[in-house]
């Protein structure tokens, strides 16, 4: 039983796909300008990862190794199209804001990562739990980044005014940088730093040691 909890809970912080595995960064930069887009993207990614993990895990014993990746991508891509169609039909405003980023879920490394690393080797139940855990971990980071960017970039949270901006007669001057992609990089960087300061086990061994220049010249 403990094992199943772990599948869902470990990816939240200890094995977070964004801050530890550094997967799915591209969409984390693009869709976190506001909480509502981050939330929609999180739901879309969660549905995609969970359903595709279940589908791949279901047929994992019959996927020929030579076309393994193609089969996985076909399944993920189909699910993404279905989700995009649903967004266009039921959340039209949101689909306009997310535009191509919904389609880019296909190339979200986290989706393929979970399928390749977990769903290909495990039964449906654990695969779904693992997918759920990872997408919740991903959503958590997206929501944190989205909240910070929307709050400091516009003074709002979920569209409701928190800091009254100068334009509306308040005191808060919005930081336009927060609405641009680099700010997401900074925030994710700080998050990774914080988590690794609290959990030193996540710090990676450097692949190469630094060589001082004069030493190199001597040898």
């Amino acid at each position, binding site marked *: 039983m403990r094992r199943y909890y772990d599948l869902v809970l470990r990816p939240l912080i200890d094995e977070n796909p964004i801050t530890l595995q550094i997967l799915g960064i591209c969409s984390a930069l693009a869709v976190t300008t506001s909480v509502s887009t981050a939330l929609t993207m999180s739901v879309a990614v969660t549905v995609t990862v969970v359903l595709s993990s279940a589908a791949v895990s279901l047929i994992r014993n*019959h*996927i*020929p190794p030579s076309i393994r990746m193609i089969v996985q991508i076909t*399944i993920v*891509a189909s699910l993404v199209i279905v989700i995009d*169609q*649903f967004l266009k*039909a039921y959340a*039209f405003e949101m689909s306009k804001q997310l535009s191509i980023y919904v389609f880019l879920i296909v190339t979200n490394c986290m989706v393929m990562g979970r399928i390749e690393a977990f769903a290909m080797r495990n039964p449906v139940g654990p695969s779904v739990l693992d997918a759920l855990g990872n997408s919740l971990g991903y959503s958590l980071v997206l929501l944190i980044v989205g909240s910070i960017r929307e709050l400091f*970039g516009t003074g709002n949270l979920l569209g409701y005014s928190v800091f009254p901006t100068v334009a509306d007669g308040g005191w808060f001057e919005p930081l336009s940088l927060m609405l641009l992609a680099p700010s997401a990089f900074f925030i994710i960087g700080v998050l990774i730093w914080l988590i690794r300061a609290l959990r030193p086990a996540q710090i990676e061994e450097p692949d190469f040691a630094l060589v001082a220049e004069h030493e190199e010249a001597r040898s």
Partner: protein
Amino acid sequence: MAELNPLRWWRSLLAAPNTSPLKTLVVALMVALVCAVVVSVTAVTLRPLQQANLAAERQARMQEMLANLPGVEDLISGAGGGSLDVVLVDLDTGEPVENMDPATFDQRAAAADPATSREIPEEADIARLKRRSNFAPVIAVRRAGELALLVLPVHGAGYESQLYGYLAIEGDLNTIAALTFYEHGETPGIGARIADPEWEQLWPGTEIADAEGNLRVEVVRGRATEPYQVAGLTGATRTSTGVSNLVRFWLGEYGFGPFLERLKSGEIKL
């Protein structure tokens, strides 16, 4: 020996090693088939909803623009004794098209079909459209029998997306009454400000052409110094240039130019 019982054939196939070419082929086909069915069923069942959304969006932006113009609200509500008509215009000749229903005309579909569109010569294609439809719908708002407002659909390339909007011209056919964009994918906070009220309100009153009839309207960097100019958005130079170009294109020779000419000279009446 070939297996004839399909159920047994299926079982033997599943039992075959995953490296077998036949199984590879069958698995690939099955996955493709199932995915194709799932995708097509969703797309087809959800299409009516999606189209209703798009139509509602267009309608909403148009209503919003008209509502923001002085005096038009009374017209729409019918109090001012005015009327609102959609007319289909042949862009090449500038003549209204009589035998087609403007309500069912889809300008985007028409622009994509070679039979209902024409190629724009490269040097004239400042809005970077490549093709434009032969016909375009125009909305005429009349007050006491006189043309009070003309609403033209415009579109063109911005910095990273196509911009779609409506340009409203006053009854003198030389003053812009409003410009609004209902669909674009420009950078949030930068180019996307073209749809902000702060920028939209710079447009009313801008003049289109000078006394000699030269098309003068443009978006400029920095401050607007002439009645033909609108101040561009700081930091969004390419989006501003795109808007400038698309406005000039649609008011020019390959856009509504011929139609506006004929309206001005009184050859046609709306």
